[in-house]
């Protein structure tokens, strides 16, 4: 178990390292983004500011030297930006809990409703309840969370004023307000996933129901409820939980971006889009690297948890 965790975490770190190189090359060299031009004040720059930028940032140095210098700055939190900005690292660390609650809540909501509905569907398999749920799930799966977030915010929060228009209240400040501010974002972010999970969990449960051990459990006279809870559910949840882990480790760079912009939640998504909107090169790279670290680490942690739940995974390869 420990060796699996170590392997998985080192793969995550390697991924983050490669990502940092790619981000550096992408922003620094491949597009004809000219760091000298951008760091020298962009359109407002003059020859002097550009010369100053070359000197200040050491743009004449070989690329590996520049890479190491930039990464040091990013990890120490003192990313220099030409237009002047606060510490990116502390801004990121401040924003992280907001996104954590948004993503975590949406993830719990999606898997709980997905599994509950799938169970209900499986108990009534082949009957009208099953058909209604699977069709509703397919429909929910087809509503992009961008559309859902936009419509929910515009009508329920902005027009009808049933919910707060935006912003965030800390959990420790006022738990009720915290819940109230996050409820719509959770629904908007999780509903498409709920739709997907109902289908996946249902299929996986039905497959598990055909297994020999389930027939054996029935044969020894267990009630249907007990059979499902003890024998079907445990095995039927392995595949969906894997998928769930991937989905929600991706969420930090996925729905968090636009859900936070729409609901004005001061999380990393809002911070990212503000940073990118600032057209300032070093903080954009810094943001990309912070997010990469968060995404690969959550992915790794989720995989380790899944491996802890299901010993069969431990022997398999590193990735996914």
């Amino acid at each position: 178990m420990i060796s699996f965790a170590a392997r998985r975490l080192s793969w995550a770190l390697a991924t983050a390292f490669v990502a940092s190189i790619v981000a550096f090359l992408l922003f620094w060299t491949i597009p004809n983004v000219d760091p000298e031009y951008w760091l020298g004040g962009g359109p407002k720059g003059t020859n002097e500011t550009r010369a100053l930028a070359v000197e200040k940032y050491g743009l004449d140095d070989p690329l590996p030297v520049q890479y190491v210098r930039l990464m040091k700055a990013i990890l120490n939190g003192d990313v220099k930006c030409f237009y002047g900005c606060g510490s990116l690292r502390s801004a990121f660390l401040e924003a992280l809990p907001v996104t954590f609650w948004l993503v975590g809540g949406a993830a719990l909501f999606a898997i709980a409703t997905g599994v509950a509905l799938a169970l209900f569907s499986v108990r009534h398999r082949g009957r009208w309840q099953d058909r209604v749920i699977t069709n509703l799930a397919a429909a929910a799966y087809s509503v992009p969370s961008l559309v859902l977030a936009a419509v929910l915010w515009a009508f329920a929060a902005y027009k009808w004023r049933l919910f707060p228009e935006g912003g965030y209240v800390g959990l420790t400040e006022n738990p009720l307000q915290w819940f109230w501010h996050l409820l719509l974002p959770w629904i908007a972010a999780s509903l498409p996933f709920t739709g997907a999970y109902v289908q996946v969990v249902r299929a996986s449960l039905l497959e598990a129901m055909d297994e020999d051990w389930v027939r054996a459990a029935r044969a020894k006279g267990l009630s249907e409820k007990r059979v499902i809870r003890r024998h079907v559910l445990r095995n039927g949840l392995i595949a969906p939980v894997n998928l769930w882990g991937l989905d929600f480790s991706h969420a930090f760079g996925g729905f968090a971006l636009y859900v936070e912009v729409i609901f004005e939640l001061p999380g990393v998504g809002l911070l990212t889009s503000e940073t990118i909107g600032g057209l300032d090169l070093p903080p954009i790279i810094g943001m990309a690297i912070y997010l990469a670290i968060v995404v690969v680490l959550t992915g790794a942690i989720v995989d380790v948890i899944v491996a802890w739940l299901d010993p069969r995974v431990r022997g398999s390869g590193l990735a996914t």
Partner: protein
Amino acid sequence: MPAVLARPPIRRPGATASASPAALALRRLRHDREALVFALLLALMLVALVGAPLYATLVAGTTPAENHLTDQVTVDGERVDVVSLDGIPIGPTWGREYFLGADENGRDLMVRLLYGARTSVLIGAGALALTVLVAVPLALAAGYFRGRADSLISRLLDLLWSFPALLLGFLFASAINLSGARIGPFTIEAGSKLIPVTVIGLVYVPYLARPLRGNALALREERFIEAARAAGMGAVRVMLSEMLPHLWTTILVLAPLLFANAVVLESALSFLGAGVQPPEPSFGTLIKAGLNDVVVSPHLLLAPSVALVLLVLSLSGVADGLRRALSPHRALGVDLVHGQ
């Protein structure tokens, strides 16, 4: 993943022994009423998009960019301002002009929606083509050469896969949007629509290449590949004429899903300002523009939202139908969650 087509043809009651797998699949598809409804819906929408310029000139008599701030339109025999004196645009007239209403500049929303959807769908189609063009050779090479080539390609795909598509797209698109890109002989201007096409196309490569690689690896073990190699066929020929035909099933099933994902990703990118740039309409820019005027003009938000949902719904309906028709006894072990 097992090869989807590498098995004897399925005999069904009513199927003749001589029917090809494609003919069988087509027959199953023809009897799948649900899939046909979605296919019809999709076809109607595509026809509407192709006919957008015709609608604009012949029916609405305007262009997507033309402002009509001071114009009037006849509704139920009365002349009404397109944009009222206090700046509130007209809602849906359900008539020839301003069928879905106007926006705050007096532009015809139906015309803008048709053109916007066209842009989004074209970007999605371009991105899908790019994904297929990159993913298929990678999967074929990994499957054919196995060993080192395979593990290199797989690691590369895993790396791309470990990052969320939206974040990758957002960062790539923003980087290129700063001042365009010059990659080898290709130049992309800042603000060009090729940026979302390239970015979305590349970001989704692993989502197609990974399942295809699995198929290709399984195919490589088949006897007919051995036979082709023994007959002296070169690597490229084996890949193209022996392996590729067996990958089409997977490509065909995944294509509508990837297409839907690409359109949704485009809308998210444009919404965040990294895709299509306003005033050019697309799903993302229209939704963004409609977001703040919802109190007085809800049609501006609802029209693009409903259109996008219908498009995604019909695409996933078609994808389900194709999957049922092409591999009736097992679902492909692939799942996509859009926009992520």
